[in-house]
């Protein structure tokens, strides 16, 4: 177990290093990018950048400077706003983004899985058809369309929830739903097909042949096994929820990291783009690691093969 975690952490650091390198050199290729010396910039920003990265130094030295910064969790100053660091921008938006993401993950699990169960238990009857119809819509309609439609209907027309801002809890409803919509549908479809497959397994017949009650058969024997594929997709789910929040934060005008990111793109705030990308990547990889560990705990067969390997 411990060796597995260490292995995974090692791979994660390697990936992160690859990402930092890739990002740095991509940004270097931008005409007028952060590490090019011929630019028109506010003098105080120029000075801050120079102090941080040594702009007159050769590129490999600048790269090392940047790496050293990353190692000390310092993403450098903003390219556009004097006196603001990328760290500050992230710290500013993180709580909102995390809260949104967490609520969305909860929604995905709390709505998607039960929807799948209901559909599987009523196979080919109306609850199944209804859930599958809804889920197919959720998978096909892009989140920004869902977001704008929700915004129009519930905020502008019906006025049930505020159109923007997070001043009270109702402000969270639409963004979270729009963010989670696709993945709720995805998880509903996945858990349905996974459950149906599990129902066919011999051990389910064994469980019934032991005289266990339907509830015991479903929850103890059926659900746990069919949830394994659902857990495996949770990693990508988390990743996509976080990247999906760019648009959602934009549409609902929420002050999260995604909004900062989109704003940095339009402003061509290169250091911010770099910093936020790297931060995102790191965040996602930690999340995926957590999900994988959860998976390990859920399926004992994996544990053995990993340990012996």
């Amino acid at each position, binding site marked *: 177990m411990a060796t597995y975690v260490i292995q995974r952490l090692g791979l994660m650091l390697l990936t992160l290093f690859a990402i930092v390198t890739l990002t740095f050199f991509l940004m270097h290729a931008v005409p007028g990018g952060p590490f090019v010396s011929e630019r028109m910039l506010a003098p105080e920003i120029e000075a801050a950048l120079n102090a941080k990265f040594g702009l007159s130094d050769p590129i490999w030295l600048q790269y090392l400077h940047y790496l050293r910064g990353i190692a000390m969790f310092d993403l450098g100053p903003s390219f556009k706003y004097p006196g603001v660091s990328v760290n500050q921008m992230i710290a500013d938006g993180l709580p909102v983004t995390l809260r949104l993401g967490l609520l969305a993950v909860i929604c995905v699990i709390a709505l998607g899985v039960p929807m799948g169960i209901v559909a599987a238990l009523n196979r080919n009857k109306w609850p199944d058809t209804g859930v599958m119809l809804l889920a197919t819509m959720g998978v096909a309609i892009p989140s920004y369309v869902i977001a704008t439609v929700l915004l129009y209907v519930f905020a502008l027309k019906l006025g049930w929830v505020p159109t923007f801002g997070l001043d009270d809890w109702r402000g969270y409803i639409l963004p979270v739903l729009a963010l989670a919509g696709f993945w709720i549908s995805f998880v509903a479809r996945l858990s349905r097909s996974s459950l149906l497959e599990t129902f066919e397994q*011999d051990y389910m017949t064994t469980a*019934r042949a*032991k*005289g266990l009650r339907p509830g015991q058969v479903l929850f103890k024997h059926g659900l746990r*096994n069919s949830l394994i594929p659902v857990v495996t997709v949770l990693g990508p789910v988390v990743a996509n929820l976080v990247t999906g929040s760019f648009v959602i934060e934009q549409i609902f005008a929420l002050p999260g990291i995604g909004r900062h990111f989109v704003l940095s793109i339009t402003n061509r705030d290169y250091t911010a783009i770099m910093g936020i990308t790297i931060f995102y990547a790191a965040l996602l990889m930690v999340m995926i690691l957590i999900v994988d560990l959860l998976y390990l705990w859920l*399926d*004992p067969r994996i544990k053995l093969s990993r340990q012996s390997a």
Partner: protein
Amino acid sequence: MIGPILSVRDLRTSFFSQRGEVQAVRGVSFDVAPAEMLGIVGESGSGKSITCMSILRLLKANGRIKSGEALFDGRDLFKLDEDEMRDLRGNDIAVIFQDPMTSLNPTLTVGEQVIETILRHRRLTRAQARQRAIELFELVRIPSATARLKSYPHEFSGGMRQRVMIAMALSCDPKLLIADEPTTALDVTIQRQILMLLKELQTRLGMAVILITHDLGVIAEVTDHIVVMYGGMVMEQGNVRDLFARPRHPYTQGLLAAVPDLRDDTHHRLTPIPGSPPDMAHPPEGCPFAPRCPHTMQQCVAAMPPLFDGARCWLQHPEAPRVAGVNELEPA
């Protein structure tokens, strides 16, 4: 003479799909006496497993018991409600399946899977149930029983898993144990161990066992009575000794001819039965074995033969012509 513990009468089970009705079991009747071991033999698709799943009422969603009764301890299993049936399963009637690799839940410890069965049917504390599980593991000779309770199925070999299945089946002292091809998926060397264990436990615990198999060798050694099934029907039934000594149905004879006999040193070839079992979506009107039988007569395809004293074959009709080796036996 004590009455049978299980008495199946005219059981008919069908499956319904887009292709139409598949008549898997077409009027099967047999008795199981207390503390006896009954063998049901047949090829795959002969309806032997479906018969047993019907008795337990564990058919797949598209399967239906169309008619018949199964008297267990004087109660018709087909008339019980689902709750009563559940109280019976795993308690009075237990079952072991063919493939121990897939019949155990891979995500629960084997201990848990035995304990939950005990707790379902007995008023015991968890600790008592655990103690009972250890005793059961020792009974089926799983080494270091206490430690093994915490293992997962994938940590066992096939034979050990089947022992776990047996322990689980025995956990509530069933009066009837149905073993559906319990040795088929195992290594040949393990098959015999498991079979002998079953036989030993059957005599020791005094329970009735239905042993389903396609392997006549398995049957001959351990069972008391045999039911031979083909095309969803009983072709021949009777005492194991008589049936092996003088099989009266050409199908049984064909089965026996296809079994290698190590004591036989005449070096004659094994005789396979040509052809394949009938399509149960369109069962033949006459004897299901007629297309493959070496002695088929006009009467065989025209009408279904009744059971003539335990053998469903027109050649057993008093007016039937004599055929050497079938109804005209060489002098003993």
